[in-house]
């Protein structure tokens, strides 16, 4: 299924989308695949599939630790791309958005990278350290490979830039709820909700709100404020990192959490 269709269907069902974010390979690849299966079976609509990087400067402590462990365990970009194929082979049909830092595609060759993820079935990329100003190559190769290049919008983004970004964006816009990095937070300000509303005035494109979402209520709030869905990542890692010896044991808890957050996305939509 592609992104456009997913958003359309969810709209018809009057649901917000939920996109969990997972880095592959923590603590090992097989667990990551199972984790992703659990997520999609229990509420995830879209998957943000992270390729670990050594210096994930847009990520908070939870995902930093995740990347560090994954790299120690020998994960490579190629193994990650292979992981996407594995998911497709196992029947996961949800849209997959690949997230990584720019040095990974840069070193592989941006075109090669795009082609390879397209081939295994990904639909889009998020490269948090590439703003529109630096996105020429990314956009050109994305177009060539039919991979959406997702851009982010932040509370600091000016109206000027908002316009520029919406001009280039495709797939959806990633709305950063807070000034900061990824990581589960207790509460989200009104300012976040205002940002969603502000972006909505510029574009009809789907808006996925992320950063700091870790429970049903937060998901519900951002969707109620006009976002088309909610992204959550660190909150899942926070569950399984407590039991890295036997992470599979935490999957029921994660199944429950993803269900709740998805429920928040549904309820938020209906509260509009």
């Amino acid at each position, binding site marked *: 299924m592609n992104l456009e269709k997913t958003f359309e269907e969810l709209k018809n069902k009057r649901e917000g989308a939920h996109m969990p974010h997972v880095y592959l390979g923590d603590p090992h690849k097989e667990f990551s695949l199972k984790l992703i299966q659990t997520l999609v079976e229990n509420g995830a609509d879209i998957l943000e599939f992270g390729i670990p990087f050594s*210096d994930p400067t847009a990520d908070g402590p939870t995902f930093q630790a995740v990347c560090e462990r994954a790299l120690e365990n020998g994960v490579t970009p190629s193994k990650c791309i292979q992981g996407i194929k594995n998911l497709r082979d196992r029947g996961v049909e949800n849209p997959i958005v690949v997230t990584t830092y720019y040095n990974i595609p*840069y070193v592989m060759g941006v075109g090669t990278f795009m082609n390879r993820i397209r081939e295994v079935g990904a639909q889009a990329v998020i490269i948090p350290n590439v*703003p529109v100003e630096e996105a020429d190559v990314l956009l050109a190769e994305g177009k060539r490979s039919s991979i959406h290049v997702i851009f*982010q*919008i932040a509370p600091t983004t000016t109206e000027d*830039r908002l316009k520029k970004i919406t001009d280039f964006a495709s797939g959806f816009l990633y709305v950063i709820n807070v*000034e900061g990095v990824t990581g589960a937070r207790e509460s989200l300000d009104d300012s976040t909700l205002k940002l969603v509303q502000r972006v909505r005035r510029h574009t009809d494109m789907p808006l996925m709100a992320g950063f700091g979402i870790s429970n049903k209520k937060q998901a519900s709030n951002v969707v109620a404020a006009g976002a088309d869905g909610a992204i959550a990542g660190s909150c899942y890692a926070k569950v399984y990192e407590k039991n890295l010896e036997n992470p599979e044991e935490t999957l029921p808890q994660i199944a429950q959490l993803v269900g709740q957050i998805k429920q928040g996305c549904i309820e938020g939509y209906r509260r509009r």
Partner: protein
Amino acid sequence: MKKKGKFGDFGGQYVNEVLMPILIELEAAFEKHYPTAEFQAKLNGLLRDYAGRPTSLYYARNFSELVGSKVYLKREDLVCGGSHKLNNTLGQALLTKEMGKTRLITETAAGQHGLATAMAGNVCQLETEVFMGVKDIKRQASNVKRIKLLGAKVTPVDIGMGVLKDAVSDTLRKWTTCSMTTHYLMGSTVGPHPFPEIVATFQSVIGKEIKKQILEKEGRLPDTIVACGSGGSNALGAFRPFIKEKDVRLIFVEGGGESLESDNNAAAFQIGKPGILHGALMQVLQDENGQIKPSRTRAAGLNYPGRGPEISFLGNSGRVKTGYAFDSQVFEAVKIMSKAEGLIPALETAHAIAYMVNHKEEFDKNELVVLNFSGRGDKDLETIMRYFHES
């Protein structure tokens, strides 16, 4: 036309969207305030009266005899705080005030930049927070004490290897949470545009002085300028006014660590390749997949896997010759300079000295050389004494 913030392909603004508006604001503020007479007056006043500029250009007679060329030392060790770092922090602190921000954050490895930031912060009455890898906190204990005594907050960074690379990452993260009120005072010619440009501009006071002083003393430009570096700020500061003077040879010396084998050095020009880290495309140590590798050298201030965009470009284009010195040569160089001229160099600076000592054949007899003496070795005293007692 050269794209703003790019040096060839190097440079750019590879940052989170959160920071882009802040970088744009910073660039605008710099372009607006820096050229004004008022800003120049404030900056030059502080450089002169607080920092102690101009620093002298000292003809090192004894050292010259030793290496067989005519060597002048550009005495950045005389700058208040003990290194060139203050040239830049004073400038950025003034800029921070102009932007109406009230806090500074930064990272530091050798502690020199952290110290210089705290100093500039206090002069301009800005709150200062310094991120520092736990490993660097240990090996640069005296600078940590100084920073704390100045009332700045030192925040230990224990992710990764607990060194500079990790501290930069954490400072960037922190910045994304407070960039409205807080300026990230970048300590070298690294990071996203406009930082490399801002830092190089503030540091190029070094080279401007060299030019004036060597003309006064020798009536001609130097044949060669030698500088150590990592991000490249002291080197670019010295080189910039000479880049267009094609007859002036420029040599940049990076940390050879224990050996050029992988994971044992900080020699990005020797064994790194272009990559994107901390907001810019630069020459960087990395594996075949693009994962950044940690650097290793006894000189904390050179212990960074990347070379800043401008020096990356100059090194790769051949305008600047790149060299390196091994740790053991560096400690020897400390001793040689201490004995010859009574000056204890910083371990970073000692790389440039070691290069000259170990490559005498590259320097003609009586060749006119300016060695940028980027800092004094007080901060490294423990490390140096321990090295000589252990080995």
